[in-house]
């Protein structure tokens, strides 16, 4: 099998879908001739032209709003926002419009929209370029939220996102863009709401979201050498959330750790932990543990950022905290 990077895999997924469906439009800042600030849309402009791969002015609210207009008029739209922090300028279209139009218009429209936006945590981009805001989004009924952690998943999930007749926020990870993975020659899709067990184990369940996955797997390998067998679960989509796979794992291990680069308070980790408590309280050996960013703004200084974000040692410590 051939290998592609995570960024190339997303690119290939978009390219295949744009070949299948001539109605699809890509829009965003620098997505056209330049190929995207991180190169994810490279070559699409050359293949599909300026009408379908549209360089936009710096206006996030209008980019997503315009993408919604395209979508409800029958043209699936893929909008790119260069950093997840920039979704703040587009919060009205992302939260008030795209996920609600179908409902409050009684089903008269569908909104085939993908908002692609990357998480940059851990790369020294500083306070306004390093946030992971999925918790804000999963709070909104009508939105789907995807957080792929491998090249293989990224390709299969972006294709599903583009085919979905509903609004999807596709949260990529800049730290993973150059990560390589095996990609089948033939096309494939990955359904939403289906978690992937990245590593099987019997002692502790470690649920890890998006960009933290490589560190979660590293923590699991190091713990294996200490005789602790960690099961690492990647929900892949946080809305819809495959809670069944997580609950089944916890019923086996009795221990739950949830890790994400988003801040701890009000994070998706709290939601997953609570759902497990409601479903599998009697199976738990102790309270679920969250490993997440400290509740402080993310500093640019490497020393300070590293102290803010969750790391391998933190996940190992959390997994060991259940041992007597």
């Amino acid at each position, binding site marked *: 099998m051939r290998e592609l990077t995570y960024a190339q895999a997303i690119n290939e997924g978009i390219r295949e879908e744009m070949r299948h469906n001539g109605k699809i*439009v890509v829009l965003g800042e620098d997505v056209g001739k330049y190929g995207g600030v991180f190169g994810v849309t490279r070559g699409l402009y050359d293949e599909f032209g300026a*009408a*379908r791969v549209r360089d*936009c*002015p710096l*206006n996030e*609210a*209008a980019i*997503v*709003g*315009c*993408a*919604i*207009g*395209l*979508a*409800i*008029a*029958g*043209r699936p*739209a893929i909008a790119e926002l260069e950093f997840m922090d920039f979704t703040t300028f587009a919060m*009205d*279209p992302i939260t*008030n*419009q795209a996920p609600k*139009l*179908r*409902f*409050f*218009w*009684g*089903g*008269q*429209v*569908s*909104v085939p929209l993908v908002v692609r936006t990357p998480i940059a945590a851990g790369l020294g981009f500083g306070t306004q370029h390093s946030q992971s805001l999925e918790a804000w989004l999963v709070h909104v*009924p*009508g939105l789907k939220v995807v957080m792929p952690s491998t090249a293989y998943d990224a390709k299969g999930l972006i294709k599903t996102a583009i085919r979905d*007749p*509903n609004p999807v926020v596709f949260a990529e990870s800049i730290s993973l863009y150059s990560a390589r993975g095996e990609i089948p020659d033939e096309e494939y899709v990955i359904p939403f709401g289906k978690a992937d067990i990245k590593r099987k184990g019997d002692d502790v369940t470690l649920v890890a979201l998006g960009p933290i996955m490589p560190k979660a797997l590293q923590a699991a390998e190091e713990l294996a050498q200490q005789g602790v067998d960690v099961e690492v679960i990647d929900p892949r989509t946080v809305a819809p959330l495959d809670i069944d796979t997580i609950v089944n794992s916890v019923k086996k291990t009795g221990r739950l750790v949830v890790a994400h680069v988003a801040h701890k308070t009000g994070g998706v980790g709290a939601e997953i932990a609570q759902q497990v408590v409601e479903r599998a309280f009697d199976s738990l050996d102790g309270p679920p543990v969250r490993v997440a960013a400290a509740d402080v703004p993310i500093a640019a200084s490497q020393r300070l950022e590293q102290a803010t974000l969750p790391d391998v040692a933190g996940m190992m410590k959390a997994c060991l905290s259940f041992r007597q």
Partner: protein
Amino acid sequence: MTLSAEQQIEAFRRMWLIRYFEEAAIRLYGEGRYRGSTHPYIAQEATALGVCAALQSTDVVLATYRGHGAAIAKGADPKAMMAELLGKATGMCKGKGGSMHMSQTEVGFLGCNAIVAGHIAIAGGVALAQQLDGTGAVTACFFGDGASCEGVFYETLNMATLWKLPLLLVVENNEYAISTHVSDAISVPDISMRAQGFGLPGVTVDGRDFDAVYAAATQAVARARRGDGPTLLEAKTVRWSRHSAVAAGGAGGEKADRWKLTDPIPRFRQELIQRGILAEARAAEIERDARQVIDDAAAYAIDSPYPALEELHTDIFA
């Protein structure tokens, strides 16, 4: 392009439908038949009709929470609207939308939107789809003077002009954003002047004058269909006595009845009579019939059932 006598009479009829619809909406709110609020379009009828008369059935209209007028002008069904207002299962949105979220896509009314200016960029996207599809259709987007202060309005002005989108941006300047008068909110005397900074035509007309609105809209539609891009059309008007059923806002006190001095409906009626298109008796009959349509719609809405609770979980995902 001139309108036939029949088309002008239909515009006159729809003006009365809007007026009576809004009076019924206010009355039904007072009777406690629905909750929330309603934002009457009274005194602005000539603007919606003037613009929609310049459109084809395949063109699209988007409007704000003060959007009942645009809906009726584009041909939406008053019965389904009234039922929607009352939150009934027979409403055009199954009762889920209410006063501020009406829509009827089959007549090209792509709905009301309750986030001020939130729909302007969406209208740009609909216009972009029309441009890419090459159908020759255009989009008209109604919004108020208040919305013209929101950032996304300017973002859309820039992008729509840059891309030459087939779009009419119709700003209905009714002088007040709830209580704030335009003189306290807007730095230019005419909102159409905003167009100068973006490189598109900006036109101001008397929004209570059907003919003036229609003439300006016709030019803007022709320009859009030619592929020359958007137009910012400002329709100046005077707001009805309140912002909404809930908020009085400005224009209260002795100013409350000011709109009646320039009421667009008697003015249009007089025009049609002078042109020999309409006789007094026929005008009175049209008004009576419109009132009956709305009375029937209200009775239909009151008699309609509320939605089943299962509807809570439908229409979220396609």
